[in-house]
C-alpha cells in the first residue's frame, strides 16, 4: 500500500528544510498520511487531466517551511499554554489579600512563521502577554512600565472605576513612564487585557494583549463550592484538571488591515508541528480568548469530542452544553471543559472552523495519551 510516489518524494524534499518539525509525532503522522496519498496522475501534455493531483491529500503540505526560533523570540507557545502569572500576593492587617504584578511594554521583533519577522509591540516581550491569574475578591495592583517608543495603556476587562480603565483619557502611559492600575478582582471568569491607546487596531494587532483570569472564590459560591474550587488554581479539586490557555490571534504583516497569519498563541501551526499532550485521566479545561483583529469572529472546533462552554467564564454552570464548535467575536472569551477519559489514545485535531484561518496557521492537535 505504501509506495514511494513522486508526491512523497516532493514532500520529502520540502520536509528536508523542516528538519526540526519532522522529528515530532505530528509531522510523522502527516508524512504517513501523505505517503498513503494517491499517486500523481501521469504527466500530460497540453490537456490537463482534470486535477493536478489527487483529492484529499493536500493536508500534509499545508504547513510552514522551517522552524521558529522560540529562544530568540523569548517565548515558547508550549510554555505559554500553562505559565500562569500569579504575581506577588500579600495580606494586609485587615486580612485583605493584595496581588501585584509588574508589566513592561517592550518593542520587539518577533519571528511569527519561520523566517517571517514582525515588528511587534508586546507586554513583557511576549505575545500574548503574561497570563495574569488571581482569585475573586482580591485587591489587584498592576504596575505598568512603558519601555516602548510609543504611548500605551493596559485596559482590563473587569468591573472597575473609569480612572483605572486604561484608555486614552485615563491611564495612558508615555514612553519611559509608569502607571499603577488598581482595582478589585471581579467578576470571576476568563477575561483579557489589551492596550487601548490609539490607533486602537494597530495597538492591538501589533501584539499588546494577554489573558486575565479571575478564579471564583468557593466561599462566595456555597451553592456550587465544588465547581468553584475546581477552577481555583492550586486547590485539590483543581489538581484533578489539566488547564491550558489559548489565545486566538492573527497578524497583519504588511499593514493593509488584513491578516496574513493566524494562530493559536501567536505561532502558526505550533501545536500542529508539536501537539498538546492531554492526559485521559484528567479533564481538560481551556481558557479561550479571541483577540483577532480585522476579522469579526474566530472559532474553536474540536474533532472526535464535544464539550461544555462557559461564555466569559462568569458562570459556574455551562452556557452551552455538548457542542463541538463555538464562535467568539473580537474580544470575546470563555471556558471550555472537555472529557477525554474514554477516548482511544491518539491525535485529535482542533482548529478554527473558518477554513481560511485554519490553513493560514490556526490548526492544532491534541495528543491524547
Amino acid at each position, binding site marked *: 500500500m505504501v509506495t514511494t510516489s*513522486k*508526491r512523497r518524494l*516532493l*514532500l520529502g*524534499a*520540502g*520536509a528536508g*528544510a*523542516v528538519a526540526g518539525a519532522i522529528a515530532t509525532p505530528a509531522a510523522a503522522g502527516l508524512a504517513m498520511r501523505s505517503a498513503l496519498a494517491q499517486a*500523481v*496522475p*501521469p*504527466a*500530460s*501534455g*497540453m*490537456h*490537463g*487531466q*482534470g*486535477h*493536478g*493531483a*489527487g*483529492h484529499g*491529500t*493536500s493536508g500534509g*503540505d*499545508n*504547513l*510552514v*517551511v522551517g522552524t521558529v526560533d522560540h529562544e530568540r523570540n523569548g517565548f515558547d507557545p508550549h510554555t505559554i499554554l500553562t505559565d500562569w502569572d500569579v504575581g506577588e500576593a500579600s495580606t494586609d492587617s485587615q486580612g485583605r489579600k493584595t496581588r501585584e504584578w509588574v508589566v513592561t511594554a517592550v518593542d520587539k521583533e518577533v519571528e*511569527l*512563521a*519561520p*523566517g*517571517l*519577522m*514582525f515588528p511587534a509591540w508586546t507586554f513583557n516581550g511576549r505575545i500574548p502577554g503574561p497570563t495574569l491569574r488571581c482569585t475573586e475578591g482580591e485587591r489587584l495592583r498592576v504596575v505598568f512600565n512603558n519601555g516602548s517608543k510609543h504611548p500605551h495603556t493596559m485596559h482590563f476587562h473587569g468591573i472597575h472605576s473609569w480612572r483605572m480603565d486604561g484608555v486614552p483619557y485615563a491611564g495612558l502611559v508615555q514612553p519611559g513612564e509608569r502607571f499603577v492600575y488598581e482595582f478589585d478582582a471581579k467578576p470571576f471568569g476568563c477575561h483579557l487585557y489589551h492596550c487601548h491607546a490609539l490607533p486602537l487596531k494597530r495597538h492591538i494587532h501589533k501584539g499588546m494583549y494577554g489573558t486575565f483570569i479571575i478564579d471564583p472564590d468557593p466561599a462566595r459560591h456555597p451553592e456550587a463550592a465544588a465547581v468553584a474550587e475546581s477552577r481555583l488554581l492550586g486547590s485539590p479539586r483543581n489538581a484533578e484538571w489539566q488547564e491550558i490557555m489559548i489565545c486566538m490571534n492573527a*497578524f497583519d*504583516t*504588511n499593514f493593509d488591515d488584513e491578516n*496574513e497569519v493566524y494562530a493559536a498563541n501567536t505561532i*502558526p*501551526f505550533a501545536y500542529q508541528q508539536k501537539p498538546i499532550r492531554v492526559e485521559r485521566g484528567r479533564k481538560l479545561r481551556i481558557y479561550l480568548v479571541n483577540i483577532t483583529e480585522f476579522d469579526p469572529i474566530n472559532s474553536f472546533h474540536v474533532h472526535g469530542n464535544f464539550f461544555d462552554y462557559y461564555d466569559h467564564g462568569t458562570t459556574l454552570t455551562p452556557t452551552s452544553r455538548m457542542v463541538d464548535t463555538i464562535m467568539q467575536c473580537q474580544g470575546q472569551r470563555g471556558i471550555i471543559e472537555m472529557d477525554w477519559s474514554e477516548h482511544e489514545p491518539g491525535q485529535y485535531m482542533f482548529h478554527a472552523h473558518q477554513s*481560511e484561518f485554519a*490553513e*493560514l*496557521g490556526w490548526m492544532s492537535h491534541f495528543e491524547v495519551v
Partner: protein
Amino acid sequence: MKQDIAPTLLASPATPWRTTAWLLLPVVVLGAILALLIFGKPLERLTADAPPVEKVSIERVRLTPGLITLHIRADGSQPITIAQVQVDAAFRLFTISPPGPIGRLGTARIEIPYPWIDGEGHKIVLLSSTGAPFERTIDVARATPAWDVPTLTLLALVGVLLGVAPVATGLLAFPALGSLSTNGMRFVLALTVGLLAYLFLDTLHEGLEQAGRALERLRAQAAVWVSLLIAAGALTMIGRRGGRVPEGAALATFIALGIGLHNLGEGLAVGAAIAAGEAALATFLVIGFTIHNVSEGFGIAAPLVGRRPRLITFIGLAALAGLPAVPGVWIGAQAVSPFWMALCFGVGAGAILQVIVEVTGLIVRRDGRAALLTPASIGGVAAGLAIMYVTALFV
C-alpha cells in the same frame, strides 16, 4: 572645412597615448566617487534607519501535475528572503533554489507541490521575511504545454496557420497588382504604409504593455524605445549599404522581416493564451490573426510590381514573414519573462518603422514628393489602417 576643424577638436593623432590618458582620467575620477560612496558611506545617516524596500516580480508560472513552479526576480535595497508561501490563502510547503536571500535583480525558482485544479483559479502569495506579500493570480489553471515533439508539432501547426498561410495567401494577389495603373499602384503602396503603420502601433503598444509587467528597475519601457530605434537604425543601415536604397525584392525582404518579427509577437500572444488556459480564445486568435495577416502578404508583394520575381522568392518571403510565428507560439506557451518579450516587441516595432520609411521613400522616388498628399496616397494609408483595425476585431 572638415580638414580645418578636425585637428583642433581632436587630440593630436601623433600622440594616441595622450588621448588614452585623457580618457582614463574620467574613469579614475568616477572610480574615486564610487569608492567614496561605497566605503566612505557619506549617506549612512540618511539610509541607516530606512526600512527595507522590497520588490519581487513573478516572471513565469509553470503548472505541471501536482506542482506549481515560479520564476521570480527580486529587487530591493537589500537581498530579499522568501520566508513562506501561501496558495489560495493557505501556507504551503515549498522549495526555493538557489536557497537563501535573493540579491538585487537576482532570480530564483520556487517549487510548490499543490493539487491545483484544472480550469479553476488560484492565488499565490509569497511572504518575504519582513511580511511583505507578493501576489500572483492564476485566472484559469491549465497544464503548461510540455516541451515534447507531439506538443511542439501541434503548436508549430498553429504557428504556420497563423503566420505562413495568410501571408502566402496575400502574396497570391501579386499578378493582380501588376495590372494596376500608376494611381492604382500608388494606392497599393500607400495601403502598405497604412498596414505597416497599424502594425507599428500595435507592436509598440504590446511592447510597452509587456514592459509594464517587468520589474521597475529594468526600465523595460525605455528598453522598448531603445531597441526600437537601434533596430530601425541598424536595418536602415544594412538596407542602404553600398549607397543603394532598397527596392524590389530587397525592399520586399525587409518588409517580410519586419512583419516576421511582428508575427513572432502574434505567436507569443497565441502561445500565451494557450498557456493561460484560454484555449477557446486561442482558436479565435488564430482565425483573427489569419484574416488580419492576409493583408500583410499584400504589402510584401507591392514593391515587387513591375518585376519578375521567381517562385522561390515568394516562398522565401512567405517563410520569412510567417515562420517566426512558430517559435513565437512555442515560446509564448512556455511563459516568458515580460522583459524579454518587451525587448522582442521593441525590435519588431523598429523593423516595421524601417520599412515604413523605405516604402514611403519608394512612393516619393516613383511619383515625387507631392504624390504623398494625393487622394490615392492618403486614401491608401487610411484604407490600410482601417483594414487592419477592422480585421483586428476578429482577434
